[in-house]
């Protein structure tokens, strides 16, 4: 096994950050200039948004169920089982809905983008596209970026709703709480800042999923083995960055809204 020098390693990291920044910059800039691949954006919206709907619905619902069960155990000790609705709603809207949806969509779509673009890269289809006069960033990256940011926003709302529904189901069926109490305490606990926080996070997560997936796909080398490596790296990197950015956004929102 050969060791790489610290200098070469540092240069590689700087070059990767530069390459990623360029990809992000060019992909965003392409939104504001022609040609625009609108049909590709809709195709990606269908694939990323509609395609991810089942996992987002199921994940959201069962997370809400588990959250209600776990919360009830602790709240019972303080005689506050009625607060289950508040806890489930706040947790889902502010944190679990955005993060879990981001992670699930990342697992499904960052890997998909990395493997699709990676396969195109190793089979020279990306070069062929450039040779045919098409900018691959414009044709492949920008539509995925726009579609993921747009669809993740709505998927998160669906996930939040399913999570609250799951919490309500457990509260009514197992904890014998009134549905009206659950929804009322949940609704009353939410403030403007909580909703904004929950809706800002998916915008960042969507950007991370698409840009990281496309970045690893477009830098794939080494045949089918390289495609597998890129896919894994894309999922790992996007998941970690989603959680990191979630922490930073939460800190920022607490600074802005005070909760």
């Amino acid at each position, binding site marked *: 096994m050969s060791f790489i020098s610290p200098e070469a390693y540092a240069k590689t990291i700087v070059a990767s950050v530069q390459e990623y920044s360029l990809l992000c910059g060019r992909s965003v800039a392409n939104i504001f200039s022609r040609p625009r691949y609108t049909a590709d954006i809709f195709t990606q919206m269908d694939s990323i948004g509609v395609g991810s709907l089942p996992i987002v619905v199921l994940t959201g619902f069962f997370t809400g169920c588990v959250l209600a069960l776990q919360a009830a155990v602790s709240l019972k000790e303080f005689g506050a089982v009625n607060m289950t609705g508040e806890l489930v709603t706040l947790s889902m809207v502010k944190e679990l809905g955005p993060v879990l949806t981001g992670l699930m969509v990342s697992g499904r779509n960052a890997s998909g983008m990395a493997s699709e673009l990676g396969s195109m890269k190793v089979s020279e*289809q990306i070069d*062929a*596209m*450039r*040779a*045919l*006069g*098409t900018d691959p960033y414009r044709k492949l990256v920008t539509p995925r970026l726009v579609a993921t940011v747009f669809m993740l926003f709505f998927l998160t709302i669906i996930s939040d709703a399913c999570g609250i529904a799951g919490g309500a189901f457990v509260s009514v069926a197992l904890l014998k709480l009134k549905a009206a109490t659950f929804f009322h305490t949940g609704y009353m606990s939410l403030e403007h800042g909580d909703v904004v926080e929950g809706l800002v996070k998916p915008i960042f997560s969507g950007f991370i999923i698409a840009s990281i997936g496309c970045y690893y796909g477009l830098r794939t080398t080494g045949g089918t083995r390289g495609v597998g490596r890129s896919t894994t790296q894309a999922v790992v990197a996007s998941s970690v960055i989603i959680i990191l950015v979630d922490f930073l956004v939460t800190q920022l929102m607490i600074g802005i809204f005070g909760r």
Partner: protein
Amino acid sequence: MAETVVSPEMKELAASGQPIVEFDDVSIGFDGHEVLSNVSFTVAHGETRILLGPAGGGKSVLMKLANGLIEPDSGEIRVFGRSLREMSEKELFEMRAHVGMVFQESALFDSLDVEDNVAYRLEEEHVDPKEIRERVLEALRFVELEQVIDKFPSELSGGMRRRVSIARAIISKPDLILYDSPTGGLDPITSTTIMELVIKQRDVSQTTCLLITHRLQDAFTLATHRFNPQEKRVEKIPNNGIDPRTRFLVLNEGHIVFDGTTLELTHTKDPWLREYIE
């Protein structure tokens, strides 16, 4: 594909005597290993330049450099009289609209069928759908593959994919065609079919082209054969004639070891070159 199509810009360039492709002291390396070293050559208007040399000699890299797909470490590359280094990314895409390229492994878009693959460039240029269909059929007829129009690349043989790739490259009637090993990995009969298509394209449209091949037999077929439009077939040039527009460039380990005509190559005294061509 039947008529000679030369754009006004090309006529102007040809009249000025400027080469279509010009490499001036070009060098490029990857991971500390120099792949091309101080390469200089020109390709004149209407010329067919055959690139020969052992595998790993930098031929495919040279082809990608010529289309601006990668940038050289040093030196100047001019295509259609303009320096690629001075072109913006947008201008490079515009320049590539005048260049057709056939990749080593075809590089067809596997999620598109043959029709959409061949029509790709025209669809990007928002050509009328009716005209696109006509031109796709014309291009596929040229490569004798009209019957596979609805198939996907995965359903085609290697030779068919190469022919579709040629159809995709010539559909926009480019001023320069780059063939990267169009017969690589194919059986001799299919290779002959591909070379006949290259000869037909050269003689029918008089397009300037750069062609990489590992098979000397293919290279000499290109130099010694012509397309007979009356009989619609490729035939040997009479009286052991040689196509005057066909020239050779031989690369070895990133250096040009030969740049000249077919006769100069066959009469070379260079021991390495003699061994290589024999």
